[in-house]
């Protein structure tokens, strides 16, 4: 059981992280950010909300008369609560792999870009074309033109996507880090 002193430290540290992330998008240094950047900020703090969940959060953060901006005074307490509650937890790597396996109906161990595109732009909370393109550009092996592998036999591909489920500080290297026990990811 964490004692109170630690709790205070954690809370302060959390709020500092929130403040830092907020500042990055506070272009005019007047403690407001464009509402369209809220998703990026919250996610960069280690949260994995769905789009619908994000909309709810934004609705909470917006003014009664939406100005297109969100003020820090509202942002901080709401997001502090989100982070401390661990509301939008990271997705464990094995779960992610299972998800891909589900889509790989023929159990080949990989997905063609077209298949991936079909699912992700038509199902669930569909990607925009831009999002799909970006994801493919990162995933596709230019030599083989197929999406990544994930079976055990190809650990290098497997870890390609999984790096850094923990919060990424600026400049974290591109080198892969094997993700361990993400479900227990502490508030870093």
């Amino acid at each position, binding site marked *: 059981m964490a004692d109170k002193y630690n709790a205070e430290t954690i809370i302060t540290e959390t709020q500092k992280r929130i403040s830092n992330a907020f500042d990055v998008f506070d272009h005019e240094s007047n403690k407001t950010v464009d509402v369209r950047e809220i998703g990026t900020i919250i996610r*960069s703090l280690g949260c994995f909300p*769905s789009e619908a969940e994000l909309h709810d959060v934004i609705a909470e953060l917006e003014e009664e008369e939406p100005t297109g901006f969100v003020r820090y005074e509202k942002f901080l307490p709401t997001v502090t609560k989100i982070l401390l*509650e661990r509301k939008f937890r990271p*997705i464990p790597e094995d*779960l992610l792999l299972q998800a891909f396996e*589900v*889509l790989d109906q023929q159990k080949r161990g990989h997905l063609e870009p077209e298949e991936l595109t079909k699912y992700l732009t038509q199902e669930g*909370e569909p990607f925009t074309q831009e999002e799909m393109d970006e994801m493919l550009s990162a995933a596709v092996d230019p030599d083989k033109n197929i999406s990544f592998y994930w079976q055990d036999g190809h650990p290098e591909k497997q870890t390609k996507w999984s790096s850094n489920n923990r919060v990424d500080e*600026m400049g974290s290297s591109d080198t892969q880090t094997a993700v361990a026990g993400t479900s227990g990811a502490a508030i870093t």
Partner: protein
Amino acid sequence: MKGCISPSVHLSELQQIHTHYLFIIMLKGLQSCWDSDGAIDMGCRVTKSNQLQLKACDPAMRAALLIQRWYRQYAARLEMRRRCTWNIFQSIEYSGQQDHIKLYNFFGYLMDHFTSASSQRNLVSQMFRESDMFQDVEWERQFCYKDIEVPDVYGGPHLSFPLTVSIVTELVDAFKNKQKLHARYVLQLLGKTWTLLRLMPNISHVCSCKHTEITICGDLHGHLEDLLLVFYKNGFPSAETPYVFNGDFVDRGKESMEILLVLFAFLLLYPLDVHLNRGNHEDHIVNLRYGFTKEVLGKYPVHGKMILKLLQKIFSCLPLATVIDQKVLILHGGISDKTDLNLIAKLDRRRFVSALRPLTRREADGDDEDVSAGRRRVQSLTHGLTGQSRQELPRHSELHSGSGLTGRSRQELHSGSGLTGRSRQELHSGSGLTGRSRQELHSGSGLTGRSVDEELRERRRLAGLSLSSDSQLGSAEVLESDAEEWKQIVDVLWSDPMSQNGCVPNEVRGGGCYWGPDVTQEVLDRHKLKLLIRSHECKQEGYEFCHNGRVLTIFSASNYYDVGSNRGAYIRLGPDLIPHFKQFQASRSTRELTLRQSVGRTERSALQALRMQLFTHTSALIREFQEYDPQCTGVISVKHWAEAVEKVLRLSLPWRVLRAQLVTSTRDGTLNYQHWLNQLSVIQTHTEIANTSLLETLYKHHSNLESIFRMIDTDHSGLISLEEFHQTWRLLSSHLQTVISDEAIAELADSIDFNKDGSIDINEFMEAFRLVEQCRGVGEDEPAPQ
């Protein structure tokens, strides 16, 4: 904490309650995490927001949801990193520009401070050789291309005049194929451009009535690829496709010359449909620093000097603004609360050769006396100087006031070299100040050490009674209006918008203003304008609105800071005057990189740039760290590190976040700062230079040094003599108030003169400052990801 009896007790209690509340939430969070550990949650969280999704929860959909949720977080993290990198580059860029303005102040210092040592005088006079004496006709003779032969072996494009569409198209193709245009044709083309530009007004007025849409491009900065991309997407300039190019065609990118040639070619082809506005980089002194001069001299070793001279003329002939349908104003930087288009329309823009150089006096009747009365230095660009009326004159001038005066004796001032071209009358007056004080009407610079006479004159001036008692040189009004005109132009070329109301000097850039939405409204309304389109600032999406949609920034150099840093954009404006945007990004080099790689690469560049900045402030950093380490343990906390760095560098960046990348070895939240500084980087030099602070100083000012060297090297041979090196360094160091012994400089100069022939190769000298980070061995390209 406890035990205080002041009202703060209540506050801390409240805080405790608040903390307690948050603590409970946190526990709950942890608990819920423990509870559902191991359960397969395919993303179907039962919240009221996605109950809808639960309805049709087949496995494929759930899988897709999960993947999408996961990917969006991944993308957001990348975006955050990209944005942070961006902020770094911007901070450094703007602080670099400020640095360059200090160069201007250094020139001012030189003009005031050269001693009787004739060698020094010659040096300085060399740098400011008065060359604007000739009439245009004279210059045309000078720039004549006719004697330049084009050899048979020349494989590049040929030009013949008058230009035709096919000739120009071939020229563009040639550049696409990396060919170079022969110097003869360059001079010919530039000559005709100059002739044409001289006829143009300061402000071009364009009517959109007969056209469908006008295309407006922002900064290009030598990115030929981007210009070609625009032409590809949008079409070449023509009567049906008119263009406005809003300045900053050159510097930074490597194909500035080609961009100019293409733009000028189209200008000559369609003079009514192609409009060029001057940018702050259309300025030969800025070019010295930011790469254009180097590019030209590299590409045209024999005729480069002449080309640069002609370009100097052309730049000052470029119009300052374009107005469409009397409703849309297009100019490079921005406006200030004093902006007056009528004034701008009337002034003689050709007198303003460089924002960083003293204004040449209007040539009266070719009278020798008047002409040599010449140099008035206009107010310092950092016109936010606080009024410091009387101060002790330090031994060396203050960096920021740029005033550095001494009352010089008559003998000292007698230059006869045309440097300052100060008239005899000035000398007699003993006014060591020079015209600068007269011009600094708005700045209240630190004027010091004057004789009684000078002081009286100054006070009279400030009281507005007369600008100078030496009014044989010209009427007071001339000089006062000079200052006003100067400000109008600098404001147009250098200003940036801000979100707060008001108008304040732009300290970051060192020139122009920051202007607010109220100023936009006032100025635009006063001129009955609807919209202001400007450039000057890089934007991630290539364009950005501000000031309630009345100011639009357009920027056309993609990947400006580094590969993947930003898109470029251009505007299409129809008769309805509603801007439509097209974005693009030159991707030749980005195509092979994945999104993460390109962010990573840009990031590494930014971090490297930051490390260099840190290195140049080593001594100051140590002093600051020691404040936090009174016992001299060599160790400070990470928190103090961040505070110290922010204070010394004065770059407002998220240092705590950056710390992880800049300080790799910490223990328990502390670091050994001496060790860190040593490790930070290693400067690769060919010489043994034991004195690190010298090196540090040299590095900090290396780009300014380069600018100065290039100005000294007037025949553009790439070499300067040891003596010149020595003198320049001595002058610069006294200006900077840095104590560097003559011996150290001599040693340094000597060691750099590798072949011992008494001259220093500038390029080699500058190369020696390439910072190499030993520890990391950062390579140019990242290997492909697994």
